[in-house]
């Protein structure tokens, strides 16, 4: 059973990557002169990535711990350097090394998971102490700030997911996590409802209900009251002070339908592509909706739509199933290792995969906003494929070394 967990993880990750390469070929072959090159590039990244994943999976745990701080510092430096590079389509995300470009924000996911795991496994103190949560928050806030400056909203949200996952494993309960993010939920509810005070009151009452049930420590209570008061009083004037185009951007993010030219159009295209796939799909390379539509990100963020169109419900449910099995194995690994460090490490990796998969497919089927979150193993992009394989390598590493402690 133990060996099988790892073997299954490897098979699923390789299978998904290969499917990705095939679909990237289909999605890009009609784009001016780029089809073959993207297909080849992704293949090369994949072959390299297999090696890196293997190496990651065998590194001794002590070695991982020893390189955590240097890696974290190095990645932060790269995140600063990337801000000085020239912008591509409005943001600076790549650092060029010769002919390859890497996205430091992808490396940052790995570095943050390693740092959180190291920190939380070494503090003996209660996870509920303010200083512990504050330190975790700081570890995450630094890269998030730098990545938001690029700006890259999608990737920076991932770090919130990592933090939540790791804190859950460290001992916080699901409701406590919900309480923690409730001020943010308040902001979203406010903007979406147009600052309707009835809806707002219902929301605040439910938050108060959870607090009454959970009776959080005094500092948490104070923090939450202050945060909610701040949101309740400050959000609307702050919102009104934004420029029209800024408001529009946020509204489009939360509700793409309001912008039929940009994000909204992508959503509609994506839905049509998925819908026209039917039960069995239109066949490889035959997805005319995908090919004719204005779907500029079809080989990256919207690759799931291509799969759904060309391979139908059977194809898309199979891919969804592969992810589900992958994530369940990851959760199992994180639940069943003895060492706190390894559990944290696995929890962080699982959070990333869960977030990416749910967010991306949720976006493609139109239930979640478009945040520019790619699909692990499948989406085009060297850095992202590499980071996904390394994270998978970390999961393998944890399970392989589970008896070391």
């Amino acid at each position, binding site marked *: 059973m133990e060996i099988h967990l790892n073997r299954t993880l490897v098979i699923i990750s390789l299978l998904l990557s290969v499917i990705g390469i095939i679909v990237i070929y289909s999605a890009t072959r*009609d*784009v*001016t*002169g780029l089809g073959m090159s993207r297909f080849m590039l992704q293949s090369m990244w994949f072959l390299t990535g297999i090696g890196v994943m293997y190496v990651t999976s065998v590194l001794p745990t002590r070695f991982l711990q020893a390189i955590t701080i240097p890696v974290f510092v190095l990645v932060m430096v790269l995140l600063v350097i990337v801000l000085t590079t020239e912008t591509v389509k409005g943001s600076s995300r790549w650092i060029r090394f010769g002919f390859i470009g890497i996205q430091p924000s992808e490396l940052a996911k790995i570095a943050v998971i390693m740092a959180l795991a190291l920190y939380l496994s070494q503090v003996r103190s*209660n*996870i*509920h102490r303010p200083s512990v949560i504050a330190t975790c928050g700081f570890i995450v806030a630094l890269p998030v700030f730098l990545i938001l400056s690029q700006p890259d909203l999608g990737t920076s949200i991932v770090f919130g997911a990592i933090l939540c996952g790791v804190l*859950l*494993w460290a*001992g*916080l*309960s*699901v*409701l*406590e996590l919900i309480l923690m993010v409730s001020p943010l939920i308040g902001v979203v509810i406010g903007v979406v409802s147009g600052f309707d005070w009835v809806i707002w009151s219902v929301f605040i009452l439910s938050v108060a209900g959870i607090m009454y*049930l*959970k*009776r*959080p*420590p005094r500092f*948490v209570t104070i923090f939450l009251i202050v945060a909610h008061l701040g949101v309740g009083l400050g959000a609307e004037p702050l919102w009104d002070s934004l420029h029209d185009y800024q408001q529009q951007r946020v509204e489009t993010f939360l509700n793409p339908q309001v912008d*039929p*030219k940009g994000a*909204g*159009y992508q959503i*509609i295209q994506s*839905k*049509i592509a*998925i*819908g*026209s*796939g*039917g*039960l069995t799909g*239109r066949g490889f390379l035959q997805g*005319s*909706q995908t*090919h*004719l*539509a*204005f779907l500029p990100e079809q080989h990256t963020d919207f690759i799931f739509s291509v799969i*759904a169109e060309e391979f*139908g*419900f059977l194809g*898309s*449910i199979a891919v*969804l199933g592969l*992810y*589900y099995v992958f*994530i*369940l194995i990851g*959760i199992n690994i*994180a*639940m069943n290792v003895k060492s706190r460090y390894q559990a944290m490490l696995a929890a962080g990796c699982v959070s990333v995969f*869960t977030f990416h998969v*749910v967010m991306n*497919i*949720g976006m493609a*089927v139109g*239930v979640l906003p478009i945040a520019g979150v790619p699909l692990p193993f499948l989406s085009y992009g060297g850095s992202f494929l590499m980071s996904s394989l390394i994270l998978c390598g970390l999961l393998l590493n944890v399970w392989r070394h589970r008896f070391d402690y």
Partner: protein
Amino acid sequence: MSGGFSQNDNSSHRGQLYLFMGIVTALFLLLAVRLFYFQVISGEEYRAHSERNRIRPVVLEALRGLILDRYGVVLAENSPSYTIDAVPFETSDETVDYLGELTGQDVQAIRRRIRDPSVNRFNPIPVQRNVSFNIASQVEEHLLDLPGVFVQITPGRMYGKGTLASHVLGYVSEISRAELDGLADEGYRSGDIIGKLGVEKSFEQHLRGQNGLEFMEVNARGEELGPLPGMPVLLPETGNNVYLTLDTRIQSVAEEAVPDSLAGALVAVEPRTGAVIAIVSRPGYDPNLFTEWIPQETWDTLRNHPLKPLLDRTRDGQYPPASTMKIVTASAALEEDLVTPNSVFRSCNRGYQFGNRWAGCWTSGHGSMSFRDAMTNSCDVYFYQVGHLLGLDRWGRYARGFGFGVPSGIDAGVEQAGLVPDADYYDPAKNRVWTPGKILNLAIGQGELLVTPLQMAMMTAAVANGGVLYKPYILDRVESADGETVTTGEPRIRDWLPVSVETLRLIQDSMIAVVNEGTARSAQLPYAQLAGKTGTAENPHGLDHSWFIAYAPAEAPRIAVAAVMENAPSGSAVPVVRKVIDAYLSLENRPVAGRIDEDSADYAIP
């Protein structure tokens, strides 16, 4: 709930992890249900849809922005035209053959276009634009036999004033392979229209607008059933309107002033801004020819025409400036204290002995002359001597200081730099040998020296305005389709003439004298004082070229003009320039738009 916050109880916390697992499972179930709904339940209907009918994205071409003169007179607009589109994926080779038969177009050309591996096979591309009503109806009638082909009404470009300002406007035509590769990210597709030359090209990004998109349902027989329900139509956005600084009235006067038998160029600018009022290259051509398929004969006629109508002489024509250059040579000599306004040189006795060379004057002898007389009568001998004193380096420095040898910096399109030779230019290895006698030719604007009419107009403007060398500009403003100003053209100072106010005053006075008592007496206007300078360029290939540069009114200049007539008798350019200045100054009630105060003569060198 055994005290979630108090103590990290292992078994209860494990419950939280199972809860997490449950949440993840629920999320995946939600996604699966959503997929099932889309693909199997409502997908059923959609699938039937796509099997029976096709959905075709139809590009709604944006209206290209207008080109207007500064007062809003339309120079380029849109008119509806028929375009045959084809979806490569749906169009078989037989269809292509049949289409070629119907339209009379080369089948190979159509095939090359729609089988181009770099085009998106599922998107329709224009196969032939500007087809006649007859051909369009023929194709429309046979749509059943032409699966994948359809006819669209698209905006075509029309230049309502025919040849007027043709070189300025440029023209539009289908995007070329090379352009398409360079503009891959800008949303152009094969068969799109793009500005090729002139303003159409320079302000392409303002003019082009943004194409829209509509999804049409098409049945198996190729008939359009209408827009796909539930799909929003992405409406095209009209391009911005480009207002030029040109005044159409002056432009027409100028174009008509050049006799039909002559080739020539004229540039009129506002001396105090550098704004171009009229810019004429004759003969012109009709830019409407280029928007549709050009028959080879038409093309050949244009290209092989002895007067080269496609050449924009104002910026690509390079001529020796002849005596107009004496303004530069004289300024240099005054500025370098080589002559004073009253100094008299060796008398002009039909010519000048330099070493063993005899350099002739243009007339039978002017006698001993002062600076002013030499300018007024354009005495070559006087300037031979001045040139000799100056030497190549100093003379060249002033020539470049007056804006020659470097492009004038106009805001639209490319232009030639002309040529001001320097010591490096005379390289024996390149078969260009320097001899001291060459400065004599250069000093009177002959020899290797080459200038463009545009540069000459800007120099004239600089002399007129007190020494500011402007970059010429032709873009007055860009307005969006709903009238909001997007950007405006501004005067841009290029440099200041390297001369003092006193020197400039002397040059101005001598130019007034040229008109009042010298070689350009025929340019006089009864109501305004002109200042000018004639030139007759020796042309080794044929008859001389006639130059005239002028500005008016001399005391407060509002217009500066430079004109050159090719292979024309000395003085041919004078009446042309006179007509333009007369028209400009006599047009009453001109709307004043963005102009510097007319009455102030106080615009000295800062």
